[in-house]
């Protein structure tokens, strides 16, 4: 089942490259994936073992390296996110002027890589699948990007390459920090080893730091974030949706799946560092976001800023905070994808995204204005959207984490500062809304067409999922609880 | 150990001694005639010492010289082979015979190739 999720986009991409009609192939593949992901979600047995739909193929038995896919609640949620965002991204893709086959193939490869990374239970393939996206991203931004695409493409490629090789060192270190006889790439087995205390404590701190920096670069953690806004601003809309919505979640997923459950003590050891950095994400990047003068740059920075909340949930290391972080990953992925999709549509019509040129667009394009408003509210974290539910969990978790016994009062401070971050995001989102959709409409744009009905569907899909998850977060949290418990099991022990 | 190197030392002494004594003897016995430009020129196989610094030789010179060296050097291998041949065959195996035969046959191939390519044909 999970193999279908991974193989379907790859097969479609190859067929498209070989000459099949590209757009229908991509749409069909992403539709199949969406259906399969939903099916998997419904078939998942919450009372059964954590990882289900497991299938494996031995690669190097003596290294215990296997192609091993399986899914628990957390990965299923991520797979669903990938499927929804891919579907939406492919759907909203406008006509591609040149190298159409390659464009869709790149999108599908990114999707396949994300699917593979989220479905892998083997460290090696977990890592390798994520990197499948590297070349397509480079090509997507370089060939079909806008603005300063060249330097953006170089920057994201080299930055992510550096990050992923640091991550590789961390993973190698993790593999080698268990006794020789027990070494394995199987995450399940590693979790058992960690529970039995078999992971060498001496190297744990160093390994965790490598993982944190490696994943951190991929997530755009505060001092390593500079690649993200520019790349998202220059990338073609579907690429920005996939990258900001899905791929960036890979690093967070990795922290939740690998770093925290396997190295809980080291995670605690580096908590303070993480808190300082994530405050940088929320406050510093938040202020930077306010000062942006273009819609796409603002969205890029806002996606960097919101990573801070997810980090806060992860840093809290308790069930509440981790649940919140996991749900927020899902919610943020949907909301930022919707925002980029709308911004892309606006940009196509007006051919500029600078705030000073825009204004009053809600009049000719009521649907886009309404949808942008909803997505912006979701992004700020207004009640009713999934973002609200998860951010509340994150804040409660983080605040509680202090009570759990640390003398350092950083968590409280961080929570309070992060709450101010919500205000900051309200400021920039509303300002952007006002600058783009309210105010005086320049005459040349009075006849701009609103979104075609068929193109409204993907955006509605994204927003509806957000609302559904906002009103019934329990449905999703039920999936998350077991896997998140595994991540914070040490807390209950100590 | 160091005694084994005595012959080398002796050879070195003899070599240096010979060169030195040749110089010394020529100074002592040679008639110190009057120097003139002709006398000071380098004497080399009767060739004129003046002319272009990089005269053009026919590439045939090198070809023949290289072939000569190639086939000449091989004799060096045959000499020790011939010396140990009888004992080796008695002690081990006639493999030593076949190995030399294969060596010579490779040489023959090279020779045939050289002829076929016209390396020994001076006029070509």
């Amino acid at each position, binding site marked *: 089942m999970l193999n279908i999720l991974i193989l379907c986009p790859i097969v479609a991409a190859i067929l498209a490259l070989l000459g099949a009609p590209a757009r229908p192939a991509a749409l069909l593949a992403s539709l199949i994936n969406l259906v399969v992901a939903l099916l998997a979600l419904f078939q998942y047995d919450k009372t059964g073992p954590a990882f289900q739909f497991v299938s494996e193929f031995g690669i190097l038995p003596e290294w215990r390296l296997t192609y091993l896919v399986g899914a628990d609640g957390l990965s299923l949620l991520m797979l669903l996110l990938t499927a929804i965002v891919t579907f939406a991204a492919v759907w909203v893709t406008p006509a591609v002027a040149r190298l159409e086959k390659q464009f869709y193939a790149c999108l599908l490869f990114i999707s396949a890589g994300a699917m593979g990374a989220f479905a892998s239970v083997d460290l*090696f393939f977990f*890592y390798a699948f994520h990197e499948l996206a590297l070349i397509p991203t480079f090509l997507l931004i370089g060939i079909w990007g806008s603005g300063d695409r060249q330097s953006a493409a170089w920057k994201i490629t080299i930055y992510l390459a550096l990050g992923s090789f640091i991550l590789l060192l961390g993973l190698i270190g993790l593999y080698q920090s268990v006794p020789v006889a027990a070494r394995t790439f199987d995450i399940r087995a590693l979790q058992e080893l960690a529970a039995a205390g078999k992971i060498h404590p001496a190297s744990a701190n160093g390994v965790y730091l490598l993982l944190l920096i490696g994943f951190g670069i991929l997530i755009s953690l505060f001092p390593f974030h500079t690649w993200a806004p520019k790349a998202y601003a220059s990338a073609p809309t579907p690429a920005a949706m996939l990258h900001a919505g899905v791929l960036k979640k890979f690093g967070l997923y990795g922290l939740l799946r690998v770093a925290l459950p396997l190295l809980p003590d080291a995670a605690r050891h580096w908590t303070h560092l993480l808190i300082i950095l994530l405050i940088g994400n929320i406050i510093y990047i938040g202020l930077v976001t306010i000062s942006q003068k273009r819609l796409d740059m603002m969205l890029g920075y806002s996606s960097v800023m919101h990573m801070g909340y997810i980090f806060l949930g992860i840093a809290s290391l308790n069930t509440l905070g981790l649940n919140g972080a996991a749900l927020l990953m899902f919610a943020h992925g949907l909301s930022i994808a919707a925002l980029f999709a709308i911004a892309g549509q606006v940009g196509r019509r007006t051919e500029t995204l600078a705030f000073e040129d825009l204004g009053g667009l809600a009049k000719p394009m009521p649907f886009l204005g309404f949808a942008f408003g909803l997505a912006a509210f979701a992004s700020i974290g207004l009640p009713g959207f999934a973002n609200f539910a998860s951010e509340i969990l994150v804040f409660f978790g983080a605040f509680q984490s202090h009570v759990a016994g640390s003398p350092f009062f950083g968590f409280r401070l961080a929570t309070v500062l992060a709450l101010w971050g919500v205000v900051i995001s309200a400021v920039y989102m509303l300002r952007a809304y006002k600058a783009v959709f309210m105010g005086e409409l320049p005459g040349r744009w009075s006849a701009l067409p609103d979104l075609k009905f068929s193109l409204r569907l993907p955006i509605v899909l994204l927003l509806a999922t957000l609302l559904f998850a906002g009103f019934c977060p329990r449905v999703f949290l039920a999936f998350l609880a077991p896997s998140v418990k595994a991540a914070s099991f040490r807390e209950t022990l100590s | 150990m160091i005694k084994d190197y005595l012959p080398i030392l002796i050879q070195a002494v003899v070599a240096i001694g010979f060169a030195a004594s040749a110089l010394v003897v020529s100074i002592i016995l040679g008639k110190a005639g009057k120097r003139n430009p002709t006398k000071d020129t380098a004497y080399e196989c009767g060739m004129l010492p003046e002319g272009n610094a990089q005269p053009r030789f026919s590439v045939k010179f090198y070809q023949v010289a290289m072939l000569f060296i190639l086939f000449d050097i091989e004799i060096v291998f045959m000499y020790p082979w011939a010396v140990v041949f009888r004992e080796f065959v008695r002690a081990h195996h006639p493999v030593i015979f076949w190995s030399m035969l294969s060596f010579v046959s490779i040489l023959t191939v090279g020779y045939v190739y050289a002829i076929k390519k016209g390396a020994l044909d001076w006029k070509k």
Partner: protein
Amino acid sequence: MMPAIYLEAIVLTLGVLLVLMEAFSNSEEKTPVAWLGIVGLTFVFILTFFTANDLSASPYSAFYHADFRAIFFKRFALLTTIVVLVLSIEYRGVVQKYVFGSRPQAGLGEFYALPVFTCAGLMWMASAVDFIMIFVSLELVTISFYILVAYMRRNAGSLEAGVKYLILSALSTGFFVYGITWIYGVTGQTSLEKIGAILLGLKVSHGPLLFGFMLVLTGLGFKIACAPFQIWVPDVYQGAPTPVTAFLSVGSKAAGFIVLMRVAEVFLPVPWINHKAVTILVALAALSLLYGNLAAMPQHNLKRLMAYSSIAHAGYILIAVACIGSRYANIAVSFYLAGYLLMTLLTFLVMAAVANQAGGDDIVHFNGLGKRSPYLAFAMLAAMASLAGIPLTVGFFGKFLIFYVAYEKGQFLLMGIGVLTVAAGFYYYFKVVRAMYWKEPADDTPVRTSPLTGATIAALAFCIFFLGVYPAPVIRALEGPPSDNPRLLAR
């Protein structure tokens, strides 16, 4: 099961046969020589699978080993030579232009036959465990390269390359032999096995032995093209005919590395050498990584870029050599080289095809290749991705193994430099990708390749992905099946 030594004999006979065939045939067309070479070498390649793996009882075992690694590198040499011959056929137009003789294809026959002799030398070197044997096979390789590098004798670049290669290679050989004499002077042995026993056992004088080892290391440093012995590399790579450049960068480097491994495995376990030798190897690796990667970044000519990249890859492999003693150091080196073979030869094949049409091998000539011939561009993309080290390609698995052994041995400095230089590598390899896909082509005509070249390109690209996902075949070839290997079961 036949003894491995027959393989070399067959290859040599094949070479002699090719030369004679060329000399005696009156045909103008010389391509059949290459075809016969390809077919013959493929036959030998198949034979390697029916070769006895151990020669413990053989009379040659003092100077000739046929372990898994030796057989592996024999296959490596054969495969390289086959691809080089394919490449030579593709490239024959250029060679013809610079070697005019009495007949249009005069001189091409030897261009096809000489690589076969080089191949025999490489195969021999894979098995050589005695300094004399190593030296003789090294010379067989080097001398045929002297001719090949300067083959296009009316081309100033090729001649310059030839002279540089001749002088520096002869110098390095001098270092190598001088080192051997010092080691022989101390131990009284040329067989590596016996030298190892003496080093571990009796008291030997440290200074002279270390001096000898360093000289050998210097000599090998030239062969594997690591800094600071890299000065010859860029000019020679750029000047030599493309097939020869490919052969040099793969074959010559692999030969250097297998000898380095054999020598290092004898010297590094000795406690008083280990520390110093590892320090030197670390320094060499760090220098090569930094120099190769940084100097590659501003290059405009793809052949020159590949020269610097070859220095950089020597640096990566040296990381693993410095980690000898780790269980997987040997696998890491060999696997990396196998991956390097695939991706480098693929690059040169595509380069030759493009250069034939565009008339040059600068990166500019690749502009818009993605539009002109998507298949070639995709193959090149695979090669570049693998060279840069993107997962699910063979190049990544090689780098993974390298970092794996480095972590195991605690070489954190090298790991740091390695990660930084990998990021630098992304820049210059992706420059080619950028040219192929971002830029507009100068003309839209597709690049034509012969069916043979096309098939070889497809096979190499397939192997890059296949071995990147499923590396087991290579590791089996190096280690034997898991049941044969008590070491692995013991884990």
